[in-house]
Each structure stands twice: as C-alpha cells, then as structure tokens.
C-alpha cells in the first residue's frame, strides 16, 4: 500500500558486484518525499551504481530498493513512469530540435497527445530555450544541452528526480541558474536525489547528505550536523599586506596544515595555540600587516575529507582526467 507517508526512496542493504569489483557493499538509506538528498563520495565509491540501481538500469545482486513505494526489481515500469532521470552526460538527440526532443520524452512517458506540445513549450520557456525551440540541438552550448536534458526529464511531471552531477562542466552563471531551478522544482514538491562533486553546491541545496565510500554509506545526516561532527581543529583564513612564508606559518605553535588559496592562507590549528594572537605576532615580527583574518567553521569539505579520507579537489581532478582520457580515446 502506497500512502503519502511512503518515503520517496528506501534502499536496504544493496549489494552489487561487477566481476571481482564490489560496487555496492550493503548500501542503506531513506529519502523522504519533498526533500533534496545528496549522494557524495570519491570516484568509484558507488554513487552512479546506486543511481543506476534505483532507476532500474542495473540489477541488484541482493538487497531491496523501493522507489515511490514500488519495488524497483518487480515493479520496474510503474516506478519508471513516475521518476525523471538526468544522467551525468546529456542524452538528448542532437539531430532533433529541442521541441522534438521534449515531445519524444512526452511520448515515451505517456503524456497525453493534446498536452505534449503545450507542456514542451512551458518547459522551453522555463529553461530559457524557447527562442531556440526549433533549432537542431547540435548547435547548442553545453549549458543549453544540460538545461534541455533536465527539461526532457520533467516532461511527465515526475515526483522524483535523479540528477547525476547536474552542474559539472557548466559556467558559473549556468550552474547558478540550474541550482535555482532545482530549488524551485523542490518547492513545487519534486523530491530530488543528486550526486555532485561540488560540496558547496550540496551544502546549499541538500536537506540530507549520504557520504559513500567503497560501496558503503559512511555518513548520513544533514549538512549542518555533518559539519558539526568535525570537531577539534580550528581553521583561520588570513591575508597579509605582502607575501608571507608558507614554511614560517607552518612552524607556528599548533599549526597542522597551511594551504595557499590565491592571495591568502587557510591555516588549520590543532587544539592548542591561539591562532589570532599568533598570526598578529607573526605579522608584526615579519614586518607585515594583517589585511584580513577570518575564523572559519568546519565546512562540508572538511567533513567530506575527514569521513572519506579523499580531498574533493583530487576527486575533481581525477574526474577531469577521466573525461580527458575518454575524449582522447
């Protein structure tokens, strides 16, 4: 029986192996209706496999998953009719126009014939594509293709939307627009499950975050609670009137890490030491002036690093390298 209280997704002890590689090793989580759930993790952690399982693309070895109350193995088509899926790489037909792509999606998802064109135009308007509606998609920019891919996934007004890396590769403005659209959809009642490498994006969008590593959920909580779980270290961001020595800063009492970020330094202190007075003293002694000094709360990035042991920068770099290798091939 499916009630309005049925969770949007329940994943219970999901296991999946590809040959000798374990992709999912007992993944369990629940996504409540009306929420935005973020799945974060390093490359190869199992994010995409989890999405593929939940969207009916990959069969489980064991475990059980329900999507909107339907068992994804046994009631595959009924679940699929109610979800929208936006993969990491845009999957629209580039030889067709934007309007035709949308109408084709409407046909596949059983949108009533008389409503298809109207719904397509509504989405083209909403995603700022209406001026190019009759153009072949081949000439679209990456951001436009991304928006059209999402619009196609929304043709049948899904109750649950899967977004795999929705803003990867987009310029700042397009990514910003897309995040606004995700928030708006969620306000309209659409449940969203997204994966992203941009932790700030996850922090801004998600109600709940599941961190996945080596096929296991290693943390599952709200972004604020995850950040609060990183205790002990204090982080200070400081900039000086002239270049300072990274080595000298690292030698200050209690400093465990110094990272140069453009014209400033992010300094992590362990329990002991007084960051502010230490830095002011250092500046004075070196003939420098402190330009800015901010004490920072632990970020989601800190939580991610602590929980998964993988720096997010490295995740992104690895991702870019993989993309480059694919393009070279």
């Amino acid at each position: 029986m499916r009630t309005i209280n049925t969770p949007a997704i329940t994943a219970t002890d999901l296991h999946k192996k590809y040959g000798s590689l374990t992709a999912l090793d007992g993944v369990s989580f629940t996504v409540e209706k009306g929420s935005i759930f973020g799945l974060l993790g390093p490359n190869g952690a199992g994010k995409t496999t989890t999405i593929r399982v939940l969207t009916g693309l990959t069969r489980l070895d064991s475990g059980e998953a329900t999507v909107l109350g339907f068992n994804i193995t046994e009631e595959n088509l009924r679940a699929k009719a109610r979800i929208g899926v936006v993969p990491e790489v845009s999957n629209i037909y580039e030889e067709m126009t934007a309007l035709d792509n949308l109408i084709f999606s409407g046909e596949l998802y059983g949108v009533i014939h008389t409503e298809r064109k109207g719904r397509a135009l509504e989405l083209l308007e909403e995603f700022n594509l209406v001026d190019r509606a009759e153009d072949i998609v081949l000439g679209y920019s990456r951001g436009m293709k991304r928006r059209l891919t999402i619009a196609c996934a929304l043709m049948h007004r899904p109750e649950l939307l899967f977004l795999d890396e929705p803003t990867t590769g987009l310029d700042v403005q397009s990514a910003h627009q897309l995040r606004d659209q995700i928030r708006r959809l969620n306000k309209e009642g659409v449940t969203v499950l997204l994966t992203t490498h941009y932790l700030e994006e996850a922090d801004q969008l998600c109600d709940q975050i599941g961190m996945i590593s080596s096929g296991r959920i290693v943390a599952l909580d709200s972004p604020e609670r995850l950040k609060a779980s990183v205790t002990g270290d204090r982080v200070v961001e400081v900039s000086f009137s002239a270049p300072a020595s990274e080595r000298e800063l690292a030698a200050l009492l209690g400093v465990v890490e110094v990272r140069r970020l453009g014209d400033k330094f992010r300094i992590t202190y362990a329990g002991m030491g007084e960051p502010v007075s230490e830095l002011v003293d250092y500046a004075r002694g070196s003939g420098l002036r402190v330009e800015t000094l901010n004490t920072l709360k632990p970020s989601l990035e800190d939580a991610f690093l602590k929980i998964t042991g993988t720096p997010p920068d490295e995740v992104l770099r690895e991702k870019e390298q993989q993309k480059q290798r694919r393009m070279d091939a």
Partner: protein
Amino acid sequence: MRDQFEKALYITRKDIRVYYLKAPNFTYGLLMPLALYLAFGSSGNISATTLISGLISLVVLFGATSIEAVAVVSERTTGTFERLLVAPVTLRWILFGKALGGAAFGPILAILALVPVVLLSGARVASPLAVFVAVAVSSFAFACLGIVASAYAKWIPEAQMYSNFLRFPMAFLGGAFISIESMPEALRLFSRFLPLTYSIEALNEAMANTMITGTYLVDILVLVAFSIGCLLLSEKVLKKRLS
C-alpha cells in the same frame, strides 16, 4: 501491451527521423549490393528473376543491417540508449521499435533498386503485394540480425564488421549469385540456415506466381521465426552487457 507497442512505434518514428539520412546507410545499403551485383551478377547460371530477387534481398539485407549498426551502437555510445532504458518501456519493446525502424528502411531501398531494374530488364512481377510482404518481412528479419550484431559491438565500425561477417557469406551462399541447386550438398544444406535464402526464395515465388504458394508461406514463417529468435537473443545479450 498496447501501451508498450505504442511506445515502440514512437521509437521507430524517432529512429526514422534521426538515422535514415546517415551516409553509411546509403553507402552500405544501396551501393554495396549494387557493386556486388555488377561484379558477380552476370557470371552465375541463374535466371533474371532470381537475380532480381537476389539483388532486392541484398539491398534489403545490407540496408536494414546497416541502419541498426548506427541506430543501436551510436545510441549506446552517446548515452541516448539509456534515455530509452530509464523510460517506462521494456528492452524487448525498445528493440522491437528499433527493428521496425530498420525494417521500414528496407522497402525504401528495395523500391529504389527494384523499379529501375524491372524497367530495364523487362522482368514480370506477378504479385506486387506478395513481393511487398516478402520485402517487408525480410527487412524486419535483417534488421533484427543487425541488432544482434550491434548488441555485441561497442563501436559502429565493430558492428559493421560483425554485420559483414554475416552478410558476405550469405550473399554468396544464399542463392543471390549462384544457384543453390548447383552447390555441393554440404553448402546446399548450409544455405538452408541462412535467412537470405528464404528471402530470395519468397521473392522469387512472389515474382513468378500470381497466387501465394506453400513455399512462399513457409519462407515467410521461417523469416518471422528468425526475427523473433534474433530479438530474443539481442535482448539477452544487451541485458547482460548493460547491467
């Protein structure tokens, strides 16, 4: 089931719009059989009607298998195939829709080849409707064969290579250029396992007889059974590969 059939037809229509004008379809579908026909067609000891049936069957074979190499493999490499897979339509009906798209391409090529050949040779077409049915069923069977080749391939050239592996032996052993009766016993038996043999035979029957013959009906049934077998095999292979 009606809902799934409708969705399969939408896939067919989309494939027609997206893939019909791709260059490999015409080079492989029309030019290759014509080249084979010109190279080998006049050297065999077979009648003009059989040669025409052979040419039409070859055009349909090359055309329908080529379009599937593009329509299935390119969709898998660009990710659009997954767009179909996440939709509420089963893999079996997706493949059926794709096969119909390829099958619809065969008759177009067949007409392009048949009309000038019949006009030039003065050959008689006793039952145009039966010819059309034979072309349509053959085309569907060969499209399904193309899907099998595409199911095993990762790239379009690989799919074309697998298709050629199937197409060329068929072209020479299916009775298009060399009469099956004149072949050694073992090859005659082997030719009975080739769908092209039944396609040529059905076309021959339809071109020569105004009434539908038993041989024609058996040929059509064999082609239908072959199509179902190919669809089930490709479904099995793709399910395994995609998972």
